[in-house]
C-alpha cells in the first residue's frame, strides 16, 4: 500500500464516514454482544474458580455408603495426585424459626479443604460455636452473636443392630437414629457469617438433599469438628474431601482440568475398588459373625430353656412330695392334740368341782370370820369412841351430859350393828350406854368366843369352826395340786398346738418357697423363650442383611458434581448458546450492513473506480482499498465491540448472574483467542461481503464504469403478455417492472425490512414464549398450585394434612415425590424428580399429563413417563433405559414409556405405584398436591402447623414464577439488544437502500419533475415501490422472526427445560407495526433528498 493510497483511504473513510461507521458499529455490536455474552461464561467460571481457590474447594468428594475410615484416609492421601485429604462430618438438624422448621445441613469446618470464607465474625473454634452460611443467615434472620438451638436430627434412618440391646457390644453406632447423638450439644452461638466454595450458587436447590419431608436442605452451617460426637462416626466418615496438586491453578471448567481430573479420579476410584470390597468383606464378616453369634445364642438359649423346663418338672414333684409328708405329720400331731384336749377337759371338770367345794367352805368360813371381825371392830370402835369422849370431857370440850348422851347414842348404834350376828349365834345382847361401855366391850370378846364355838356346815358335814378351818386347808391343798396338774396339762397341750401351727406354717412356707422357685424357673424359661422369640426375627433380619449386604463402590465426585459448578456450567452453556445464536444473527446483520454500506460506496464511487482502473490501478489494488476500508472498520469495530462487550455486555450479564452466586460481583473476562477468532471471522466475512459488493463493479471495464452504471435494462417480461397486465394502472406496472428489473434492490429492501421485522418478532417472541411456558405448565399441565410436604414416617400424617387442606376447600392428591439422581448419556448425572401417585384418580385431576410421545400415559405399565426436556436435551427416546440412583447405592433401570409436556426447569418422571413398588420397594405418599383457591399458603401453613408430621407447604406456582422471571430477565436484555439492532439495521440498510435508489432514479425523477411532476408525486413515484417491497419484507420477516424466535428460545433453554415455542401474536403485531414504522421513517428521511434535486443536474454527466 502506497502512502497516498493510504491517504486516499483515510480521506475516503472521512468522506463516507456514515457507511464506515455503520460497518464499524455493526461489527462492534456483533463482536461486543458475542464476546460479551461468550465471555460472560468464562468470567463466571473464573469467578467460581477464584472462590474455589480461596475456599480451597475440594477437587473430589469421596463418599462411601459404609463410611470411610482413617485407614482409608491414609491410603487416599498416599494416592498419586492426591495432596490433601480431609474428612467431613455432617448432620441434618432442624431449626425452628418463627413457626417454620428449617432443615439445616451442619458440616464440620474444613481446615484445609472447603474452608468457609468469613463474611463477618470469626470462624468457630469451640464446640458450642457455629458459622452460618450467608444466604441461609439472611433467610433465617440470623446474625452473628445469635444463639441457635437445634431440635432434633432429621435423619431417622435406623439400622438396628443385632446386639443393640444386649449391651455387650462395642459396635459403633454410626447410623444411630437419635440425632442428638451426632452432636455434643444442641445449642450454638453464631460466631460467623460465611460463604463456602462448595456452595457457590445462592439457590438452596443446590444445597443437596436431606431426608426431611420435602427432601430439601434449607440452610447451611458449619461447626468445629469437635462439636460432633466422634462416637457417632465411629463406623467411618460419610464424606472425605480431596484436593489434588496437579489440578492446582487449573480452571475448573477447562479441558485440561477435565483430563487431569479424570486421571486422579481414576486412581481414587481404583483405590476405592480395592478398599470398598475390603470394607464390604470386613462388614460382611462382622455381620456374618454376628449372625453366627446370634444363632449360637439362640441355640444356647433354647438348650437352657429345655433344661429349665426339666428342672421345673422335677422341682414340682419334689415339692409336692414334701408337702404331702408335712401335711401327714401335721395331721397326726393334730390327732394327739385333740386327745390331750379331751383329757384337759375332764381335768378341768374335776378341778371345778373341787373349786366349788372349796368356795363353799371358804364362804362359810368367811362369813364367820366377818362376824368375828365385826364384833371385834365394834368393840374397838366403842373403846376408841369412849376414849375420845372422855378426852373431850376432860378437856371440857363437852359436858358430862353430853358425854354421856353421846356415848349412849353411839352405844345404841353399835349394838344395832352387831345385833344380827348376835341373834345368829344366839347370844343376847345387852343395851350399851355410858355406863356399861367397859362391860360391853368385854362382852364382845365373849361373843367372839361364842361365835367360834358355833358349828358350821361344810361339805355336808357339821363341823366346828376350827375343824372347818382345817378342812378348808385340806381342801385348799387338794385343789392346788389338782390345779397344778391341770395347768401342766394345759401347758403341754398349748405347746403341742404351737408346734402344730409352726409345722403348718413351715409347710406353707415350704410350699410357697417351692412354688416361687418353680415360678421363677418358669419365668426364666419364659424370658429365655421370649428372648429367643425376639431375637429370632432380629437374626432373620440380620441374616437378610448379610444376604442383602451389597458391594458398594466409593462414590468419587469430581467438581462437575458440585452444584455450584453445575450452575455455573448451566449459565455458561446458556450464554454460550445464546452467544452463538446472537453472533450468528449479528454477523448476518453485520454482513448485510457491510454489504450495503460497501455497495453504496462502490455505487457512489463508480466513476472513481473507473478512473482508477483506467489509470492502471490493478483490480487487486482497488479491491484492497475497499477491503482495507472494511477491514479498518471491522478492526476498529472489533476493538470497540470488545471494549463494549468487556465492559457493558459482560457488566450487564455479570450483574444479573452475580446475584445468583455467593461470590457476588466479579471481574469481566477477556480472552485473546475468542477475540481473535471473532475478529478474524468478522474480518473474513465482511471482507467477503465487501469483495462481493465491489466484485461485480471491479469486473467491469473501466470504460463501463466511467460511463456510469448501466441503467436497468428493460425488456419485455412474460407477464406483460397477460391480459390482466394491460388493465393494471400504470403505477402498478411501473412498480412491478422496477422491482423485477432491479432485483438487487428488490432483494435488498426485502431483506432489510425482513431483517428488522424478524428481529422485532424474534425479540418479542423470546420474551413472551418463556413466560408462556410458565403459563402452559400451570394452565394445561398442573391442576395444582401448592405442594405440602409431609413426613411419611409419621403415621396418618399425610391423611391428616390432606384432610386439613380439603377442609380449606382445596382439591388434593397424595403422591410420593422425591428427587433422585439419574445417569445421563454423557456420563454426568442429573437430578430427576420422581412422582408416584398414590391414587390415580385424584392425581389425574391435578396433574394432566399431556403426552408428547409414547401414547397415552398409562401408570399401570412398567416404566416411567418422563418430562420432555430430558428427551430433548439428553437425546433419550421412548424405550430407552434411565438409570436411577436409589440414593442408597442401589441402581434401578427404568424404561422410558413416553414423554409428556413439562415446562418447568427440572427433569421429572412419573410412574405408577405398582411399578415403583416393584422397582424401588415400599413407599408411602409424602406430599399432598393441592389446588388451593384464595386461601393463602401462609394461612394454610399456620393451620397445618399443628398436624404432626407436617413438614412445609410451598406455593409452587409463585416459587416457579420467580424462576421464570430470571430467565425472562436474561431474555429482556436480549430483547433490548434485538430491538436496538432492528432499528440500527433499518437505519443502515433501509436508509442506504432508499438513498441509493433515489440517487439512481435521480435522472428519471428530474425528467419527471421537469415535465411537471410535483415533488409529492415524484416522492410517491419512489414510495410506491418501497411500500410494496416493505410489505413483502414484513411478510418474510415475520415468518423468519417466528422461526428465529423459536430457535432463540431453544438457545436459552437450560438442559433441564423445554420452553414453549409458539408464534406469538403480540410479537407478530409489534413486528409488523414496528418494522413498517421503521421502514416508513427511513423512507421519509431518504425522500427528503428529492426536494433538493436541482433540475439543471440533468445536464451533468
Amino acid at each position, binding site marked *: 500500500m502506497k502512502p497516498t493510497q493510504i491517504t*486516499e483511504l483515510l480521506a475516503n473513510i472521512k468522506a463516507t464516514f456514515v457507511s464506515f461507521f455503520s460497518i464499524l458499529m455493526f461489527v462492534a455490536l456483533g463482536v461486543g454482544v458475542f464476546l460479551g455474552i461468550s465471555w460472560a461464561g468464562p468470567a463466571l467460571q473464573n469467578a467460581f474458580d477464584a472462590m474455589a481457590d480461596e475456599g480451597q474447594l475440594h477437587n473430589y468428594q469421596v463418599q462411601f455408603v459404609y463410611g470411610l475410615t482413617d485407614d482409608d484416609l491414609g491410603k487416599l492421601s498416599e494416592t498419586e495426585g492426591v495432596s490433601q485429604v480431609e474428612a467431613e462430618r455432617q448432620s441434618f438438624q432442624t431449626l425452628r424459626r418463627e413457626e417454620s422448621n428449617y432443615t439445616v445441613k451442619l458440616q464440620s469446618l474444613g481446615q484445609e479443604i472447603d474452608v468457609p470464607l468469613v463474611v463477618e465474625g470469626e470462624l468457630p473454634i469451640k464446640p458450642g460455636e457455629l458459622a452460618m452460611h450467608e444466604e441461609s443467615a439472611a433467610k433465617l434472620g440470623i446474625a452473628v452473636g445469635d444463639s441457635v438451638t437445634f431440635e432434633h436430627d432429621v435423619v431417622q434412618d435406623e439400622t438396628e443392630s443385632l446386639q443393640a440391646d444386649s449391651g455387650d457390644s462395642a459396635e459403633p453406632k454410626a447410623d444411630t437414629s437419635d440425632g442428638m447423638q451426632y452432636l455434643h450439644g444442641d445449642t450454638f452461638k453464631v460466631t460467623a457469617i460465611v460463604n463456602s466454595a462448595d456452595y457457590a450458587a445462592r439457590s438452596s436447590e443446590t444445597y443437596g438433599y436431606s431426608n426431611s419431608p420435602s427432601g430439601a436442605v434449607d440452610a447451611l452451617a458449619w461447626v468445629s469438628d469437635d462439636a460432633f460426637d466422634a462416637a457417632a462416626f465411629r463406623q467411618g466418615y460419610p464424606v472425605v474431601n480431596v484436593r489434588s496438586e496437579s489440578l492446582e491453578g487449573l480452571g475448573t471448567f477447562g479441558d485440561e482440568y477435565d483430563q487431569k481430573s479424570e486421571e486422579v479420579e481414576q486412581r481414587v476410584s481404583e483405590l476405592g475398588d480395592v478398599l470398598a470390597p475390603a470394607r464390604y468383606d470386613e462388614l460382611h464378616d462382622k455381620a456374618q459373625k454376628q449372625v453366627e453369634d446370634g444363632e449360637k445364642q439362640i441355640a444356647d438359649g433354647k438348650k437352657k430353656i429345655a433344661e429349665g423346663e426339666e428342672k421345673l418338672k422335677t422341682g414340682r414333684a419334689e415339692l409336692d412330695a414334701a408337702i404331702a409328708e408335712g401335711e401327714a405329720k401335721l395331721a397326726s400331731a393334730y390327732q394327739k392334740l385333740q386327745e390331750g384336749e379331751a383329757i384337759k377337759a375332764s381335768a378341768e371338770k374335776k378341778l371345778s368341782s373341787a373349786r366349788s367345794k372349796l368356795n363353799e367352805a371358804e364362804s362359810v368360813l368367811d362369813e364367820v370370820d366377818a362376824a368375828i371381825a365385826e364384833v371385834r371392830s365394834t368393840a374397838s370402835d366403842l373403846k376408841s369412841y369412849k376414849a375420845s369422849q372422855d378426852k373431850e370431857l376432860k378437856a371440857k370440850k363437852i359436858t358430862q351430859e353430853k358425854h354421856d348422851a353421846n356415848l349412849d347414842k353411839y352405844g345404841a348404834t353399835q349394838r344395832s350393828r352387831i345385833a344380827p350376828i348376835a341373834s345368829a349365834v344366839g347370844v343376847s345382847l345387852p343395851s350399851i350406854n355410858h355406863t356399861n361401855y367397859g362391860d360391853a366391850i368385854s362382852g364382845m370378846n365373849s361373843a367372839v368366843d361364842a361365835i367360834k364355838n358355833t358349828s358350821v356346815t361344810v361339805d355336808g358335814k357339821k363341823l366346828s369352826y376350827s375343824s372347818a378351818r382345817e378342812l378348808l386347808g385340806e381342801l385348799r391343798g387338794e385343789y392346788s395340786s389338782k390345779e397344778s396338774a391341770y395347768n401342766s396339762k394345759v401347758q403341754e397341750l398349748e405347746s403341742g398346738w404351737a408346734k402344730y401351727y409352726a409345722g403348718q406354717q413351715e409347710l406353707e412356707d415350704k410350699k410357697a418357697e417351692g412354688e416361687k422357685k418353680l415360678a421363677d424357673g418358669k419365668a426364666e424359661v419364659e424370658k429365655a423363650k421370649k428372648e429367643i422369640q425376639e431375637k429370632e426375627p432380629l437374626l432373620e433380619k440380620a441374616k437378610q442383611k448379610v444376604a442383602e449386604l451389597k458391594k458398594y463402590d466409593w462414590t468419587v465426585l469430581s467438581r462437575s458434581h458440585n452444584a455450584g459448578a453445575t450452575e455455573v456450567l448451566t449459565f455458561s452453556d446458556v450464554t454460550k448458546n445464546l452467544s452463538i445464536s446472537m453472533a450468528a444473527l449479528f454477523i448476518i446483520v453485520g454482513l448485510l450492513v457491510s454489504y450495503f454500506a460497501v455497495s453504496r460506496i462502490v455505487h457512489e464511487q463508480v466513476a472513481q473506480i473507473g478512473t482508477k482502473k483506467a489509470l*492502471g490501478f490493478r483490480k487487486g489494488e482497488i479491491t484492497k482499498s475497499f477491503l482495507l476500508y472494511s477491514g479498518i472498520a471491522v478492526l476498529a469495530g472489533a476493538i470497540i465491540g470488545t471494549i463494549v462487550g468487556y465492559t457493558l455486555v459482560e457488566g450487564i450479564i455479570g450483574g444479573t448472574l452475580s446475584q445468583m452466586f455467593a461470590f457476588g460481583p466479579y471481574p469481566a473476562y477477556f480472552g485473546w483467542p475468542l477475540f481473535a477468532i471473532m475478529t478474524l471471522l468478522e474480518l473474513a466475512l465482511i471482507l467477503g461481503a465487501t469483495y462481493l459488493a465491489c466484485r461485480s463493479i471491479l469486473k467491469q471495464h473501466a470504460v463501463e464504469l466511467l460511463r456510469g452504471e448501466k441503467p436497468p435494462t428493460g425488456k419485455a417480461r412474460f407477464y406483460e403478455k397477460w391480459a390482466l397486465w394491460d388493465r393494471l394502472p400504470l403505477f402498478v406496472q411501473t412498480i412491478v417492472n422496477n422491482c423485477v428489473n432491479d432485483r438487487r434492490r428488490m432483494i435488498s429492501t426485502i431483506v432489510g425490512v425482513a431483517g428488522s421485522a424478524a428481529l422485532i418478532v424474534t425479540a418479542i417472541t423470546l420474551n413472551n414464549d418463556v413466560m408462556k411456558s410458565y403459563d402452559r405448565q400451570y394452565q394445561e399441565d398442573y391442576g395444582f398450585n401448592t405442594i405440602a410436604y409431609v413426613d411419611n414416617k409419621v403415621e396418618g400424617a399425610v391423611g391428616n394434612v390432606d384432610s386439613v387442606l380439603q377442609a380449606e376447600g382445596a382439591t388434593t392428591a397424595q403422591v410420593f415425590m422425591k428427587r433422585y439422581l439419574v445417569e445421563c448419556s454423557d456420563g454426568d448425572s442429573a437430578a430427576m424428580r420422581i412422582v408416584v401417585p398414590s391414587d390415580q384418580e385424584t392425581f389425574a385431576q391435578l396433574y394432566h399429563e399431556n403426552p408428547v410421545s409414547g401414547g397415552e400415559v398409562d401408570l399401570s405399565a412398567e416404566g416411567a413417563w418422563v418430562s420432555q426436556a430430558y428427551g430433548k436435551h439428553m437425546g433419550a427416546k421412548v424405550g430407552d433405559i434411565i438409570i436411577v440412583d436409589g440414593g442408597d447405592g442401589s441402581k434401578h433401570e427404568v424404561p422410558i414409556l413416553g414423554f409428556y409436556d413439562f415446562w418447568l426447569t427440572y427433569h421429572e418422571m412419573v410412574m405408577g405405584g405398582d411399578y415403583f413398588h416393584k422397582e424401588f420397594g415400599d413407599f408411602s405418599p409424602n406430599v399432598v398436591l393441592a389446588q388451593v383457591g384464595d386461601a393463602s399458603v401462609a394461612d394454610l401453613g399456620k393451620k397445618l402447623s399443628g398436624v404432626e408430621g407436617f413438614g412445609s407447604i410451598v406455593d409452587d406456582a409463585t416459587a416457579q414464577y420467580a424462576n421464570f422471571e430470571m430467565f425472562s430477565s436474561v431474555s429482556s436484555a436480549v430483547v433490548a439488544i434485538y430491538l436496538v439492532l432492528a432499528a440500527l439495521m433499518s437505519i443502515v440498510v433501509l436508509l442506504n437502500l432508499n438513498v441509493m435508489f433515489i440517487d439512481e432514479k435521480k435522472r428519471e425523477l428530474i425528467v419527471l419533475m421537469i415535465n411537471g411532476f410535483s415533488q409529492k408525486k415524484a416522492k410517491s413515484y419512489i414510495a410506491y415501490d418501497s411500500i410494496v417491497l416493505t410489505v413483502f419484507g414484513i411478510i418474510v420477516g415475520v415468518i423468519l422472526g417466528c422461526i428465529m424466535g423459536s430457535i432463540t428460545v431453544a438457545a436459552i433453554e437450560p438442559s433441564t427445560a423445554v420452553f414453549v415455542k409458539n408464534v406469538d401474536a403480540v410479537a407478530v403485531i409489534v413486528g409488523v407495526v414496528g418494522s413498517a414504522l421503521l421502514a416508513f421513517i427511513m423512507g421519509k428521511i431518504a425522500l427528503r433528498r428529492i426536494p433538493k434535486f436541482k433540475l439543471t443536474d440533468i445536464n451533468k454527466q
Partner: protein
Amino acid sequence: MDSSSLRIYRVIGAVQNVIANAKTLDEALQEGLKTIVENAGADGGAIWYADTSDENRLRPFFWIGPVDLTRRSHLPGDGSVGRVYESQTAERLLEFDALKDVETAIDFTGLPVSSMVCVPFSNANANLGVIQFVNGPDSEPFDDEGADVMEIMAMMAAMAIEENEALAEPWQPGEVIMQLRDITREFKNGDIVTKVLKGVNLDVYEGEFLVLLGESGCGKSTLLNIVGGMDSATSGEFSYLNQDLSNATQAELTEFRRDNVGFIFQSYNLMPNLTALQNLKLIAELVDDPMDADEALELVGLADRKRNYPSQMSGGQQQRVSIARALVKNPKVILADEPTAALDYATSIEVLQVMEEVVKGGTTMVMVTHNEEITRMADRVVRMRDGRMHEVTINRHPAHAVDLVW
C-alpha cells in the same frame, strides 16, 4: 452527353473548385482526392509524396480508407506506386489480385483491393509523387471507363500544382508503439448487437500527437478505450510494443495501462477526496520511476494549487491537474478523450497548451475530439466514420494551441 460523362465533368468541376480554393498544395491534393473519391465512388485513395531526402522514397501523406499506411513507403520502381513514380505513367491494375502483390495487400489490410489506378503527379521541376485510387464504386473493380476518370482527375489535380511549389517536409513517423489490426467492437444489448468498430487498422507512433476526429457516436471513444487497454476488442489484433494484447486478460491490460498509459478524461475524474497533489501522488506511486508530483503540477501551472481539492478548482484547473496526473507517471502514451469538451474556449486553449507542451516533451498523445480546429495541432489526424478510419492526414505543419480559434 451520356450520364457518366456528365458525372465526370461535374466531379472535375468540383475538383477544380477545391483545388482553386486550397491554400496549400497539400490541402489542394487532399481536398482533390477527397472530392474524387467521394464523387467518383472509389473505396479509397492515397497521396504519396516522394521524399527527396530519402532516395525519393514514396511516403503517404494523405489517404482515405480504413487502412493505416503511415509507415508504408515505396522506393521508386518498387510496387505499383514505385513503378508509376519511376515510369511517370499512370498504371491501371484492373484485374488486380492482391495475393500477387503481397506488399500492397499487406498495406491495405482492412480494405480488400480488387483494382487500382495509380497516377503520377509532378510540377515543372520534379516528380512529386503518386496518387493512388483503390477500387471502384461499391468496392467493384474499376472498369476502364472508371480508370479513365481517375486518371483524368488525377492529372487535373496534378496540373493544378503550381510550379516550384514545394511540398511540405515528408513526415517521418517514429517507432510503432501500438498496432491495431481489424479491430471490431460490438455491443450486445439484449438481442440487439451494435457494431461500433467495424475493422480499424491503426498504428500509433512514438512521439506523435494523434488526433482522432469524428462525428459523435462514430466510435472514437470506443477506439481510444481499446487503445488504452480499458476495453477489449471483439475481434482483431491489438499490440503494444510488439506485445500482443488482443487476448490480454483484464489483469494484463491493467498492467499495460498502469505502466504505459496516462489518461485524460473529459470529466477530469479526479479523486474528490484528495488534493491536487495527492491525486498526482496517488498515481505516481503506481510506477517505478514517476515524475515528481510537484514538478508535474508545475508543468501544468498549478504549483500553487496543490493543496486544493478538486471541488475547489475550476474545470480547466481540474483538467490540468488531470493532465499532470497523466503525466506524472511518465507514461509512454497519454490518451485524452475530449479533454476540452466540457470547457469553454479560453480554458480549452489553456489545457491544449499544456498538452502541446507534453507532446513536445516527447510523450505520445492520442486525443479524441470532435473539434475540427484542434486537428491543426496534431501530427496526424485520423478521421473516423461509422466505426472505421475514414481518412488519415499527416499534418506536416502542426499549429500551436494558442493559434487555434473556434
